């Protein structure tokens, strides 16, 4: 079953606006990561937030984590056309064993010039 679920599935905004994407998950996690995928090929890691962290920043990216609600959000400020991509959250679950990453289905973000 899907561990992470992003919403919205698709988001279209004007260049310069802020984009917010959300991710919900089901089980306790060790950490949560956000990735970007351009052109349907390899994914690029954006940011990692650990279960004991609540907020993290990297450039124009801000990630929050609410473990009580089992949710995370990714905010991209001052969006640019180059931010057009699919964004995925991935969780590393606490199962005492494997550290396999489990991905959601992604949010497709379109930045209109």
């Amino acid at each position, binding site marked *: 079953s899907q561990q992470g679920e992003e919403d919205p599935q698709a988001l279209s905004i004007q260049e310069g606006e802020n984009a917010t994407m959300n991710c919900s998950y089901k089980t306790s996690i060790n950490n949560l990561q956000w990735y970007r995928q351009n052109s349907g090929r390899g994914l690029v890691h954006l940011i990692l937030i650990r279960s004991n962290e609540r907020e993290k920043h990297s450039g124009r990216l801000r990630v929050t984590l609410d473990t009580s609600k089992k949710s995370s959000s990714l905010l991209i400020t001052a969006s640019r056309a180059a931010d057009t991509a699919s964004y995925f959250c991935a969780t590393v679950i606490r199962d005492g064993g494997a550290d396999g990453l489990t991905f959601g289905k*992604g949010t497709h973000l379109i930045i209109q010039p």
Partner: protein
Amino acid sequence: GAGVSQSPSNKVTEKGKDVELRCDPISGHTALYWYRQSLGQGLEFLIYFQGNSAPDKSGLPSDRFSAERTGGSVSTLTIQRTQQEDSAVYLCASSTRTITGAVEAFFGQGTRLTVV
């Protein structure tokens, strides 16, 4: 190498044939993951290796799919008797492992498999 390398980048095969996909992870990365992504869809987890062992094979969709990793490095994903629904991009990723769990994963560019 500098990054995760996958080969071939594209593969067209006839239905019923076997295919072998290769992943060369970043040197020193002990964790290796295989995912499958159909057009416009999310990533479907297939299998995860820690070293040469695969603690999680739960994602392999059928017994036609198998994967191995030797020497803690290169991994091959084999699909036997391919079917049209196997057409997808197959992505490989690798990461180091720390005491507190996995850190970021580095992805290859994928192999686009088309079964005709």
